[in-house]
């Protein structure tokens, strides 16, 4: 099977979960939440994410040093050109970075931009993907011949995006839009557009053959109303699960772009991906400078993945005992 084929299959599988007909949506969600709370992986993920969000929100107000000022250079402690970068000390908990800035403060402040990029990018992907997928799904499920054609056109377009390797796609988009924080967000978000689109479409098509849609049609309710107030609310669960999982990949991809030098051009603003890239030249002197941001990225991505996978499992009727 091709890579695109595998991607598609994974997405569609999640989409089917919304169409479990014997479940009623409300109690389904409540049941899922109960299962979620009993799952240790979900709790671990939630704790990691809770800490991460707290740090991102309040950390910048509490850091011991200015994350942008090169303090170490001023008092002559850091001379990176000569391979002198002091490590962990009582004053500087993670030592200095190569420009003499406090590494610990930079890690804390960097969490904010990392989270911000991840959230905005995911939201962008969710919004655009849901728009395309929702339109395609509703026109396929409720429309006639022309609905099918519109769906076909939209989904072929989405398939082109899906077929491209995600990092390549993101790099091309930044190259087109120019380097800025916004284009990083758009590029990373764009990568997840086809996933959200396919997912919402599949889940809406599954819902469109359900009894309550037939009953609403039999009452003369108009199609756009059926799509918005009946299909959509019943199709959102898998999309929200996917959004959680996408946050993890968005953070990794944003860091990847920064690492490739395509990130936020304001290099003074701490960001884990940029810090990782900066640390490359000093791996032999201070490998910690690469390890701290890498561990930060990994743990955060792990948190989102743990929670997302647990949500997926909780919603999947076939995985349930």
């Amino acid at each position, binding site marked *: 099977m091709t890579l695109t084929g595998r991607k598609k299959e994974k997405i569609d599988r999640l989409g089917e979960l919304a169409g479990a007909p014997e479940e009623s*949506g409300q109690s389904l969600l409540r049941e899922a939440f109960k299962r979620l709370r009993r799952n240790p992986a979900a709790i671990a993920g939630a704790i990691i994410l809770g800490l991460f969000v707290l740090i991102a929100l309040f950390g910048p107000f509490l850091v011991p040093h200015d994350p942008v000022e090169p303090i170490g250079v001023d008092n002559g402690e850091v001379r990176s050109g000569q391979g002198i970068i002091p490590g962990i000390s009582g004053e500087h908990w993670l030592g200095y970075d190569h420009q003499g800035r406090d590494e610990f403060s930079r890690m804390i402040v960097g969490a904010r931009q990392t989270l911000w990029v991840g959230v905005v990018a995911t939201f962008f992907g969710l919004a655009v993907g849901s728009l395309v997928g929702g339109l395609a799904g509703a026109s396929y499920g409720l429309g*006639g011949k022309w609905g099918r054609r519109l769906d076909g056109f939209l989904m072929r377009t989405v398939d082109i995006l899906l077929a491209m390797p995600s990092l390549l796609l993101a790099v091309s988009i930044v190259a087109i839009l120019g380097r800025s924080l916004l284009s990083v967000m758009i590029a990373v978000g764009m990568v997840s557009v086809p996933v959200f689109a396919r997912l919402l479409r599949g889940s809406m098509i599954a819902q469109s053959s359900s009894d*309550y849609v037939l*009953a609403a*049609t039999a*009452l*003369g309710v*108009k199609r756009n109303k059926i799509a918005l107030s009946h299909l959509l609310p*019943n199709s959102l669960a898998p999309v929200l699960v996917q959004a959680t999982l996408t946050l993890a990949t968005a953070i990794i991809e944003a860091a990847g772009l920064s690492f490739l030098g395509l990130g936020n051009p304001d290099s003074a603003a701490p960001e884990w991906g940029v810090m990782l890239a900066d640390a490359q030249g000093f791996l032999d002197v201070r490998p910690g400078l690469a390890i701290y941001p890498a561990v930060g990225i990994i743990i955060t991505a792990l948190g989102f993945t743990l929670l997302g996978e647990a949500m997926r499992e909780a919603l999947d009727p076939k995985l349930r005992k």
Partner: protein
Amino acid sequence: MALLEVKDLSVVFARKGEREVRAVDGVSFDVDAGEVVGLVGESGCGKSVTSLAIMGLLPKRGVRVSGQATFDGMNLLQTDERTLRDIRGRDVAMIFQDPLSSLNPVVPIGLQVTEVLTRHRGMKGEAAKKEAAHLLERVGIPDPTRRLKEYPHQLSGGMRQRALIAMAVACAPRLLIADEPTTALDVTIQAQILELLKDLVRDSGTALLMITHDLGVVAGMCKSINVLYAGRRVESAPRRVLFAQRHHPYTVGLLGSIPRLDAPKGEKLRPITGSVRDVLPWAEGCAFAPRCFNRVDRCVDGPPELVWTAAQHGYRCVNPVMEAETAK
């Protein structure tokens, strides 16, 4: 002229690469204004497909519908989708078998009721809410203002079906199609729902097409009864005529398979053996022949014609039951 005249209705499911299924085969019947008509038959005989065809709710692809379904002078089978959407819910409404799955699980009951009011009666906001509460009260749901805020899973099966009935009668339609409205409910609730339907149609003069597999349950409320077997109407008569005399062996079995308390002592129950899957294609003879206790060789000579008696009693059988049931 009847309010609804179904004439020669046929529905064929013909998907690519699959065998054609002739689910409904030349069915005709009338429903007069304000009258209750029964459509009876085992499950799989084409009752739901008939009602969906009348409402124009069958999928457009892979389905061939022919014949006429004339409602108030308009052939619904030839009417465009836009007009049909105006008619549905306002002039013709439908109640389905499973009240739980017929309600949107994530939308409060109230919104689902007001949706219909907004669509066909242009009501909005407080006025719509008030009318919705009034409707719920009318179908016997206690504490309607609270119920409006609840979700389908918070209601009992009977309450859900009442809510769906409320939506169906919200615009005082002239025709209500009820497709096995009590099949999914407990026996005690069944009686209540039937009573409610009976009251509603009597009070508002709505005609009711009552679809059921259980003739005994609804027989009392129908003015006339049509019996379907394997997609064809095999017997049709006013209720009194049919109760006095059933000609088609299938109808005899259908009524005979319901134990009756008032049956004379020693009357044998005559259950229908086999299942609806043991059908013969109508082209080769009577589809019921393989299961029939009255079978003769002529049964498989060709499709039996519908024979009418003087008392508006039609039956499709070459060897009908002629003596009155109780005489046996």
